[in-house]
C-alpha cells in the first residue's frame, strides 16, 4: 500500500495509564500518539489513517462526546473504548454510535491488540470506500443540471418519450442527454447506471432526490 503508516491516538486523563498503554502498543510495533484530553485530539486531527483508543470517563469531553465529534469529521476514525468498568446503558450507546470495541482497562493484551487490528482494518476499508465515493462524486459532479434531471427519470425506469413529455423537451434531446450521461459516468447499461447511483447513496444531496424506500 502506498498509504502512510497508521497511528493509534490514545486519550486518557489518567497519566499513568496513558503512559502504560501507549508503551505497550509501541512495544507491539505501533506508532502511538497520546492525549490527556479529548479536546486536544480533536484540535490536532489530521488525515492520517489509524484509530482512537479512548477512556470512556474523562472530565470535560468524555469518550462518547469524542466519538460523536469524530463522526462529524472527514477523517472519521473508529473508536475503541477502554473503561474501568462499563455500565450497560453507556455500552449500548457507544455501540449504537458505532464503537469498534468496548474493553475494560484490564482486558488481556491480546484482546486489545486484536481490537486495534480490527479497527485499523475497518479504518482502511472505510478509507478506501471514502476514496471510491469521492471519485464517484467527481464523476456525478461533471453532469449538467439538465443531465441530472434526465438521470433522475432514467433511474426511475421511465421511457424516453415519458421523460421528454415530463421535461417538455424533444425525445431526441433526451437520447442525447442519456448518451452524455453514460459517457461521463462510464457505464454501458441502464442496470449498471442504477447500481452506480445506489452505490453513491452518500452523494444524495448532489443527486436528484430518490423516492423514499428505494
Amino acid at each position: 500500500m502506498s498509504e502512510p503508516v497508521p497511528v493509534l491516538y490514545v486519550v486518557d486523563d489518567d497519566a499513568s495509564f496513558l503512559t502504560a498503554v501507549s508503551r505497550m502498543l509501541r512495544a507491539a510495533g505501533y506508532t502511538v500518539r497520546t492525549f490527556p484530553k479529548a479536546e486536544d485530539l480533536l484540535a490536532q486531527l489530521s488525515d492520517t489513517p489509524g484509530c482512537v483508543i479512548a477512556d470512556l470517563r474523562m472530565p470535560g469531553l468524555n469518550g462518547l462526546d469524542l466519538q460523536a465529534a469524530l463522526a462529524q469529521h472527514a477523517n472519521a476514525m473508529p473508536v475503541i473504548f477502554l473503561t474501568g468498568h462499563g455500565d450497560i446503558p453507556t455500552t449500548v450507546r457507544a455501540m449504537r454510535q458505532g464503537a469498534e470495541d468496548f474493553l475494560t482497562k484490564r482486558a488481556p493484551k491480546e484482546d486489545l491488540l486484536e481490537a486495534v487490528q480490527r479497527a485499523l482494518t475497518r479504518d482502511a476499508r472505510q478509507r478506501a470506500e471514502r476514496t471510491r465515493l469521492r471519485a464517484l462524486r467527481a464523476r456525478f459532479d461533471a453532469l449538467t443540471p439538465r443531465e441530472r434531471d434526465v438521470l433522475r427519470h432514467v433511474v426511475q425506469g421511465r421511457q424516453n418519450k415519458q421523460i421528454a413529455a415530463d421535461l417538455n423537451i424533444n425525445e431526441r434531446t433526451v437520447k442525447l442527454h442519456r448518451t452524455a450521461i453514460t459517457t461521463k459516468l462510464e457505464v454501458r447499461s441502464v442496470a449498471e447506471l442504477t447500481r452506480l447511483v445506489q452505490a453513491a447513496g452518500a452523494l444524495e444531496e448532489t443527486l436528484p432526490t430518490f423516492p423514499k424506500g428505494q
Partner: protein
Amino acid sequence: MNWITIAWPMVAAACLTLALIELRIGLAQPGRAPRLVFAVSALAVAAVAGLELALMRTDVLAEWWPLMRLLDIAVGVMIVSLTVFIWVHFGTGNKWLALAVPSLYAAGLVFDYLPGPLGSGMTYQKFTGFRTVETFGGATFSVADGVPNPWNVFPYLAVLALIVFVADASLRLWRRGGRRRAVIVGGAVVLFLSIGGGQSALVETGIVQMPYLISWSYLCVLVAMGHELSADIFAAAQLSRQLQDSERRMDLASEAASLGMWTWDIVRDQIWATSRARSLLGFSESENLSLSRFVSVLHPDDRDAVRHAIDGSLNADRDYEVQFRVPLPGGHTRWIAARGRADRDTAGKPVLMRGVVLDISARRRSELELQQVRGQLAHAARVSMLGQLAAALAHELGQPLGAILRNAEAAELFLQHEPPDLDELRAILADIRKDDQRAGDVIERLRSLLKRRSIELRALAVGDLLASCAALTHADASARRVKLEFEAEPALPSVKGDPVHLQQVLLNLVLNAMDAAEGEPAERRRVSVRARRDGGRSIEVAVSDSGHGMTPESLALVFEPFYTTKANGMGIGLPISRTIIEAHGGRIWAESNAGRGATFRFTLPISKQPMAEEAPAA
C-alpha cells in the same frame, strides 16, 4: 413553831433551787449571761425571804436594825440584777431608765449609813417599838413601828423606774415579735414589782399590819422563769428529736442513693469519711486519711483533674465537682463522682470541705454501651456510604491496576526485542511500583473508613481532611459529571478531631450535595467545599451545591432521624453526622443558598495543642 416558820423558808428554798438551776445552765453554756444574772436575782430573793423571816422573829432593836440594813442591800441586789437581766435578756431596754434604777436605789440606800438624825435608816426615820400581831392559825409575828423616812421615796422611785423600764422593754420586744417572752417574763416582773413594792409601802406607812411579802411576790417571777425554762427544755427536746429525724432521713437518703459522705479538715489535713465512702474509695474503717492518701488511690490519669477541682473549689469558690476512677484489685475500675463545697472562716479562708462520693460505674458503663451502639450505627452508615462510592472506587482502583497490567505486558514485549531496551524496562518497573503505591493508597483510605473504632480526638489539619475527601470522591464526581471543588483558606490552624469520623461527615455532605446537583443539567452541576476560620475559636467547613435547594420544612428536619427526601435514602446519614460533630464540640446546620441550592455547614473547635508530627506512613 407556826406555819410562818415553814412558809418563808420554803419560798427561800424555791428561789434557791431556781437560782442553782439557772446558775448551772449559765455556767455550762457560754453566751448565757442572762441566766447568770437571773440566778443572782433569785439568790438575792432567797436572802430577802430569810431576812423577812428573821425580822418577824425579832423584837430587839439591836438585832432589828442590822437586819433591816441587810434587807435593803438584798432588795438592792435583787432590783439591780433584775434590771440587768431584762437589759440583756430582752435587749430592748431604755439605757437611761436602766441607769436610773440603781442610781435611785443607791440614793435611798445612803440613808442607812448616814450618821445623825438623817442617818437613822432608809425606811424609818425614827423607831417607836415592836408590836406582836396574830394572824391565821394563831401564828404570831412582830412588826416594827416607826416614823417613815421621807427620803425613802428614792427606793420607791427606783422600783417605779424599774417597772417603767421593764414595761417599756416588754412593749418593744412585743413589737419585735418576741411576744411570748414579753408577756410572760415582762408581765411577771412588772407584777412582782407592783405587788412587792406596793405591799412594802403599805407595811412601812403602817396602813397594814403585815410582814414584808417581797419574796412571796417574787413567786410570780419564779413561775414565769420556770415556764421559760421548761419551754426551753421542750424546745431542746424537740430540736434533738428533729435532729435525730433529720439525721435518720439523711442516713436513709445517703444509703438509698449509695452516697458516701466525707469531711476534710483542711487545717489539720484530716479526712473523716462514712464507711460507705471508705469502701467506695478502698480504705479500711480505721485508716487515717489525708488529702495525699486520698489522691494516691486515684487512677494516675485522673489525679491532676481532681487536684485541679479541689484548687478551684478552695481558691475560686466554685463547687467541687469531679469524676475520677479508682482502680480496684483484679483489674477492675470504679468510676466515682464527687461533689463538695468549702466552708470558710470569717476571713474567707477555707477551713473545711464537706461532700459526697457516689459510685457511677454503672452509669459510665451504660454511657459506654450507648457510645458503642452509636459507633456501630456510624460504622454501618459509613459502610453503606462507601457502598454508594463503590463503583467510583472500583474505577479508582482499576486505573493503577490497568496501568500495572499494561506495563507488565509492555515489558514482556520489550524483552522479546533484540537487544531489549533496558532503559524502557527500568522506567516500566518504576511506574509499576508507583501504580502499586497508588492502588495501595486507595485501599488504605477505604480500610480506615471501614474500620470500626470509637471517636479519638487529636490535632488534625483541615486541609488534609479536604484532600482525603477529594481523593475519595473525585472519581464519583467525574462519573456524575459534577464539578467538585475543594478550597481551604491558607494557614488554617488545626482542629481537634477524629480523622475517620470527620471524613465520614464530610463524605456524607459531599455525596448528598452531588445527589442534589445531579438533578441539574451537566454544565450546572457544581459542588464546592470550603474551609475557613470562624472567629478565634473554631473553623467552619461549608459544602454548597447547585441543586434545586431545600424547602424551609426540609431545612428544619434534615437532621432528624429517618427523615429523607431521597427515594432510597434511609435518613440516618445526617443525624449521625450531627452526633459526630456534636461529640467534637461543634455545630452542624443547613441553609438555603441565595441563588440556587443549599449549603451545609459545620464548625469544629480549634485545637489548643500544636499538631503532632505524624510518623511517615510505612
